[in-house]
Structure formats: C-alpha cells, structure tokens
C-alpha cells in the first residue's frame, strides 16, 4: 500500500488552523452582535426582584410576560399611562401612507428620468442626490414654517409629507438605476405602438419592476418606522410615533425605573423592522447596498 502515490490535490481538511481562526473570530463577533438582543429578551421576561439581582447574562428563573403587557398597555410616558399602544398605531398611520406615496412618486420620477428626459432633468436629479447629504437640521426650521403655512404642522399629513420629501433621493436613485438597466427596446417598441407615458409605465414598467418595488418598500418601512427626529418635530404630541413614545417611557424622570418593562417596550418597538428584516433577508441587503452603488 505504501508505494501507491497519491494523485490530484491534497484533500483539504476542514480543521486547518486558518479555518479554526476564521470560525472562531466569526463566532465571537456573532456573540457580540447577539448579546444585546439576548439581554433585551431575557430582561423583559424577568420580574423586577430578579432584575435587581444584577446578572444580565442569566436567563430568567421565572418567566413572566407581565412587563410586556405593561409596556404595551399601561407604561407611563410622563403625561399619560397608555403604554406603547397609541405609539404603535401612530407609527402605522405614519409609515403606511408615507411608504406608499414616496415609493409611487419615486417610481414615476425614476421612470421619467430614464425614458422621458426633459431639459434640466439630470441637473435636478444631481442636486437631489447631493441634497440627501444635507443634515436634516439645516432644513428643519424652514420646513416647520412651510408646514405651518400649509396647515399640516403637528399633524399626520405633515409628517407624511416630510418623510415623502426625504425619502425621495434614495428611492429615485433606486428606481432610476433599475429602469436604466431594463432593455430599452421594450420601451421603444411600446412607443412605436403609440403607447404614452402612463400606459407604458403601468403596463410595461411596473409589472417588470416588482423586485425593486419590494426593495423600496422594505427600505421605507424600516427607515420611517425607525425615525425619531421628524416624528418629534412634525407629528405633534398626539401623533408621536412609537420611537418617540418609547424614548419618553424609558427616559421619563418620574417614578421608579422598571428595567424589565423598558426592555419589553424596546423589543416591541424594534419588532416591526426586525420582522421585516428577518423575512426579507437579501432584499434588505439589496436595498441598503443600492444607496452605495454609483448612479
């Protein structure tokens, strides 16, 4: 047996040193990233006496859902004790129309920019892209004046308008790049057949661009749900989104801090984007990477 020469490449063992190092590093990194999620969940399932024992690594000895119920239903924000419930519905009322309106506007706009260029359209688009880098704080006060003039300051419509405005650069870029990658022959053929702007859009472009609509919707739902600044400035106290309510509950100065309720409230607020993220997987990655790809 010993005189038989081995031929072909040496089969690579799974347990080489470099493999072990690679997986060790990745596992340690994964633990760092998962640690806060673990702490959030375990703390939210403990009773306050157990939380005060001061062991954030320990799983709950006695699982209780009372903090979750309190966070949703009766936690106090300083003024009211209605929990996160109203904030959740406000966030829904803000996110749904903002997402629909901003995605539709960006889709039509991207289509116009690719297939129906007019004089100056590229200049406007360039300024739009650069505009996305302007800190929001710069435009905040004039927008307060404008929305007040339009009688939408401190209303749901006001905050929807603001989200529509600031979602436009990234979404337009997304749609413009996607439409530009489609074969132009389809568009030309439809033009020859006499189809107009809206007909080509609804009958050819939209059915072909469902993937990019999914990416855009994911981007907007997570982005708008996570917004804090626009909610606190433009929505008005009765329409505060979930993030603002959450911050008011946790950082309210009155009363004894209930860390288990705070963590339950934090998970509840993070739940919507997290669910969207875990379900959408690579679509989410595509959405965030699209912002970094050159236009």
């Amino acid at each position, binding site marked *: 047996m010993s005189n038989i020469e081995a031929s072909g490449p040496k089969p690579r063992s799974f347990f080489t040193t470099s493999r072990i190092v690679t997986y060790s590093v990745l596992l340690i990194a994964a633990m760092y*990233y998962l640690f*806060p999620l673990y702490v959030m969940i375990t703390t939210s399932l403990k009773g306050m006496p157990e939380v005060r024992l001061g*062991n954030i690594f320990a799983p709950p000895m006695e699982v209780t859902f009372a903090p979750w119920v309190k966070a949703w239903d009766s936690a106090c924000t300083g003024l009211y004790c209605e929990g996160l419930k109203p904030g959740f519905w406000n966030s829904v009322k803000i996110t749904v129309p903002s997402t629909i309106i901003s995605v539709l506007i960006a889709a039509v706009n991207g289509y116009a920019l690719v297939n129906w260029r007019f004089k100056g359209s590229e200049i406007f688009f360039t300024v739009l892209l650069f505009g996305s880098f302007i*800190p929001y704080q710069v435009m905040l006060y004039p927008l307060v004046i404008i929305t007040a003039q339009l009688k939408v300051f401190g209303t749901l419509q006001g905050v929807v308008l603001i989200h529509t405005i600031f979602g436009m650069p990234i979404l*337009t870029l997304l749609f413009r790049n996607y439409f530009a990658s489609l074969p132009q022959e389809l568009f030309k053929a439809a033009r020859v057949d*006499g189809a107009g702007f809206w007909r080509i859009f609804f009958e050819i472009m939209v059915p072909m661009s469902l993937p990019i609509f999914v990416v855009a919707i994911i981007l907007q739902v*997570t982005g708008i749900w996570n917004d804090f600044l626009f909610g606190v400035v433009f929505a008005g106290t009765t329409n505060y989104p979930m993030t603002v309510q959450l911050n008011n509950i946790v950082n309210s100065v009155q009363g004894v801090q209930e860390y288990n309720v705070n963590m339950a409230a934090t998970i509840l607020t993070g739940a919507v984007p997290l669910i969207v993220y875990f379900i959408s997987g690579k679509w*989410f990655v595509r959405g965030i990477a699209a912002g*970094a790809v050159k236009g």
Partner: protein
Amino acid sequence: MADLSHSRSAAIAAGSGPRRLFHNLFVRNFSAKLAATPMIMTVLIVFVGCTAWTIFYSFTNSRSLPSGELVGFDQYTRLFSNRRWNASVINIMTYGVTSLCFTMVVGFLLAVFMDQKIRFESAFRTIFLYPFALSFIVTGLVWQWIMNPAFGLQETVQNWGFTSFTFDWLKNRNMVIYALVIAGLWQGTGFVMVLLLAGLRGIDEEIWKAARVDGISTWRTYLFIVLPMMRGVIVTTLVIVGSGIVRLYDLVVAMTQGGPGISSEVPAKYVYNYMFGAGNLGQGLAASSVMLLTVFIILIPWMLIEFRPKHHS
C-alpha cells in the same frame, strides 16, 4: 388594448399637422414634468430654498421668531465662544474619528473573514446586520441598560467575584463618548461589512490567481493589492458613514441625553435645543450652517473621485 390605443393615436395623427405637433409635444412634456414635479419642488423649495433660508437667517439676530435684522457673523462668534458648542464639536470629533476607524477596520476584517468561502455565510451576515435594521433609539436604550452601573454589566461581573471591575462609562465624563461609540459600532459595522464584502466580491478572480502564482501571502494580497483596488467602495462607505456621524442625534438623546453634564453633547442636539427649546433661533441656524459646511468638506474627496474619471474620458 393595443389595437385601441393604436386607433386612438392614429386618430390624432390624422388631425391637422400643427395640432398633432402641439399635442405630442405638450402631452409628452407635460406627463414627464408632472411626474418629476415632486422632485423639482423638493430640490427647489427644500434642498436649495430651505438651505439658503437657513444660511441667510444665521446672519440675523432672530430670537424665537425669524427677524430680518442682519448682524454679520455675530451668531458665529457667539457660537464658537459657547462652552456647550465647543464641547459638542470636540465630542463629535472624538466620536467621529474613533467610530470611523473602528467601523472601517472591523467592517473590513469581518468582510475578509466572510470572504473565506465559509459555511453559514448568510446566517453570519444576518447576525452582523440585524442591528442596522433597528433604530438608534432602540440601540441607545439597550446599551444604556447594559451599561447601567447598578444592575448592568458592571454589577454582573462584580457579582462573579471581580469586585474591582468597573464599567461606569455612562457616568464617567471622560468615557461617556466611547460608550456612544460602542453602541454606534454595534449598530453600524454590519452595514460597512456588507458594502466592503460587495467590494471584495467585485475584485476580479484573476487578481487572486496572479497573486498566488507570484507567491504573495493572502494577507499581503488583501492589504496591498485588493484594498487599493477597492478605493471607490471605500470612499463611498466613508462618505455615507461620515455624513451619518455629523447628524448623530437620536443615539445621544436615547442613551445619555448629552450627559453627564455636557460631556456627550453633540452639534445636532445643540441645533435642536436652540431652535425649539431655548428660543434662540439665530444660534440654532448658525450651528446648523456649520454642520452643513462640515458635510460639504466630507463630500469633497467623494466628488473628486466621482467626477474625475468623467473629465478624462
């Protein structure tokens, strides 16, 4: 449907020449311009108009309402002699430099490890990236709890018997800014990893073969061959991360509220407080104009790279 539209356009085409011409021109331009109206309005009114408004009124002595009385650079002089503003600038620079270095290095290392044809790649990516789907408010509150001196990590480790262990960064004036860095890194490194991994995957496989033939070690290839080739992706990432850092606001509000004292105050929070809290609009507008200038400076290297090749070709 196609027949219908064909007959309709045929009907228009059958009309008189000038009318057809007018119809085609008007309708075509009208639809595209109608579709682009929100963009045009956003650009003109918000990005150009509001920015110009802010810059103009930063030269006035506006208190709780905008006033037209010009006072030159008074607001800016006052701004840079304000203790809180200067602390905010130093804080954001400390945060920015530390955060930028760590995000890029950690993000790149993770991307390299992810690029080793590993198993469970998508599971690892999901884990590294999920914090990016969460808001800064959620991020700040979780880390505020972990760093809670009474019941958090410090107490836990002390209860294990390491009684001299301290991790009280949220109460420590010198360290609180690094507490924000840790939370910010947790939220954002996954995103940088994804961008840089995309950059790594975009490198031609031939480069790797050539490096292997020449006997260049793997880490040398990454550092001296692959990294310079990723210049475009890296600059784009830097610009995105950098302009995000200038805006830093939510995380501070949730995690430290600028404290203890003013040791974690940041410019964006200064702007907000002076505009909506202190009734000193001119100060808020001047501070936000400085933020704008900072972003503009960050954008310059990106613009140079983005627009240089076009001039040559």
